[in-house]
């Protein structure tokens, strides 16, 4: 097997705010192989976006700071790279698509000019050649009558069409890696499906890897090869999409899956809220919300990722020595919660209160 295209090792990112230091990403590791799609899943505030934007140092610095770890892209550690070097990688080899297409395009330039800009930042081609390529790309991402619309301004396109334009722009220099941060969240459901299909087709055609950041497990099931589940700045579970969906091994993943409709159970919000990342809880970060939490979970450091299958890891004390992991893998969260007497759960009354959780 060749080296992964992207390998994030023990990444730590913090933000120096007026209220204190926020440890947004605290020792995150995962790999992205060539041509694969990795979904980074988590609630908002889990650090998934910060982790992915740190790759090309897009986070605002200051207040942000990469406090440790390595980001190996094609063997090169990007945490050490110069700003100039990163500029050539951004948009050239690693492209980004962001959540809100309504504001992702500069309102004062025609869309074609914005794509041409992206092309010419990385390719030494004439304006005309870049323009031709822009039209090709627009056509490829499904903008009808691309030739006629290349000089239109962003406000003349719908949200879904704008996101297609943004995707075309991301493809401008044929990147090896596309980082798509909630690219469908702001769109209608039908448009969401179209954009997902488009991304899948483009991946097949261009052979790039995709890191897809989302909070939506339905989207994950659609598009992912592998899944990285993040919570409060840490990776909770990682594995192939089949393993994670069929044999969720971390209580948090199970809770997330319980939220999904059509999983044989009613929608069930996860009780409680994300911990304060200025003062993360001791021990497992999930313990205030975890139905299985034991005394070990509440002290010490966050549990390490431990293998639970081939290429499938989970960070939970139940996979360490002296624990019976079937407690977690064998039954659903709600059953064990009932068996537990509900002592560790804050939300035993809020089963139907879907606004209380973060489904």
């Amino acid at each position, binding site marked *: 097997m060749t080296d992964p295209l992207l390998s994030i090792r023990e990444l730590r990112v913090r933000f120096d705010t007026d209220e204190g230091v926020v440890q947004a990403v605290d020792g995150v590791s995962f790999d992205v192989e060539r041509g694969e799609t990795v979904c980074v899943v988590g609630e908002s505030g889990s650090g998934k976006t910060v982790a992915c934007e740190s790759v090309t140092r897009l986070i*605002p610095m200051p207040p942000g700071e990469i406090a440790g770890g390595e980001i190996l892209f094609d063997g090169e550690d990007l945490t050490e790279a110069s700003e100039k070097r990163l500029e050539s990688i951004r948009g050239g080899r690693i492209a980004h698509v*962001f959540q809100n297409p309504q*504001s992702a*395009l500069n309102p004062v330039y025609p869309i074609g000019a914005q794509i041409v800009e992206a092309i010419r*930042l990385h390719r030494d081609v004439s304006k005309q050649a870049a323009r031709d390529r822009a039209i090709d790309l627009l056509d490829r991402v499904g903008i009808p009558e691309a030739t006629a619309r290349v000089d239109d301004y962003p406000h003349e396109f719908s949200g879904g069409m704008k996101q297609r334009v943004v995707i075309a722009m991301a493809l401008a220099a044929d990147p090896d890696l596309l980082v798509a941060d909630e690219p469908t969240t702001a769109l209608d459901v039908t448009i969401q499906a179209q954009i997902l299909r488009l991304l899948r087709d483009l991946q097949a055609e261009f052979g790039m890897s995709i890191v897809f950041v989302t909070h939506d497990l339905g989207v994950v099931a659609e598009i992912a090869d592998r899944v990285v589940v993040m919570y409060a700045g840490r990776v909770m579970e990682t594995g192939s999409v089949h393993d994670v969906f069929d044999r969720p091994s971390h209580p948090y993943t199970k809770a997330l899956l319980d939220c999904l409709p059509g999983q044989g159970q009613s929608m069930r919000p996860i009780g409680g809220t994300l911990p304060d990342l200025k003062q993360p809880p001791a021990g497992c970060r999930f313990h205030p919300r975890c139905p299985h939490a034991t005394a070990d979970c509440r002290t010490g450091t966050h549990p390490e990722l431990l293998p639970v299958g081939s290429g499938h890891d989970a960070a939970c004390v139940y996979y360490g020595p002296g624990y019976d992991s079937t407690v977690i893998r064998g039954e659903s969260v709600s059953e064990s919660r009932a068996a537990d007497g509900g002592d560790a759960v804050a939300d035993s009354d809020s089963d139907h209160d879907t606004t209380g959780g973060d489904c």
Partner: protein
Amino acid sequence: MSMHWYVARRVAWAVVATYLILTITFGLLAVAPGDGQTAFAFEAATEGGDVDEARETFDEITGRDEPLLTRYTNYMVNMATLNWGWSFTRNQSVMDALAAAYPYSLMYAVPATFISIVFGYAIGLYSATHQYTLTDYLGTFTAFFGISVPNFWFGIMLILVFAVDLGWLPSYYQTGRGVWTLANAKQLVLPVVVLSTGAIAGNMRYSRAEALEYVHADFVKTARAKGADDWRVLVRHIFRPALVPLMTILVADILGLLFAGAYITEVVFQIPGLGLLSYKAIIQQDTALVMATTLVPVFIAIVGNLVQDIAYTVLDPRIDYGDR
């Protein structure tokens, strides 16, 4: 609605506004007592002339004895043909007086405007992209100083320090030196500094505020994600969109600089430009000249507004012509 129609409407409106202003001015002059007649008579009397004769002469020159409608028509025709009357205090036509004064105003106003825009915007943009750093605080502090300090006081202080104490620069403006001479440049330094200080501060504050709107905008992140360098991001993706709202301020600023701040500066430094001309005309009740020096800025404001509206059509593709 199309852009051409929109521009045509704006031009038509500018013409109507000009017409209304002229008519109102005429109305005010018609009902105003004396309108310079007294001052003219007084002038004649001090020179030993006959007061009543002077009054009649004045009425004749100004056409005050004609019926109202004829006077109105004459007035409009005169205005349109740039025949703006006679300045009795200066013994030259108003137009000649304006033409003589204008170069002096431009000599310091143009460099001051240029400097304040370039420096104001540069500092503002820098502050916006380096928010909460020491330089940002320093810039903001300087801006507050520049805005708070009154021009007349600042001008006098500068004269005291650089002209009286240090003797580096002349303390007041002397005509008769060639425009492009070092001597002329030296005597323009202080007025330009006084005028620019306030204007730099204003421009800096506005451009910082506008740019801040965009510094964290998604499309700026998109531009960075494309691989654009800081300079390109700043100029093309922050400054260019910010130019749309800044246009309003920019135009107002240039006009204000030319005709308001300049007033005090010209009096303090004794520069024989439009401001001083107008100041003296008011003191001496030279109605025709007062009117001219007041109307010129008004017309420039109308033209400025027109330019600004047309600039919007170029700068902002989202402009909705139907709404405006």
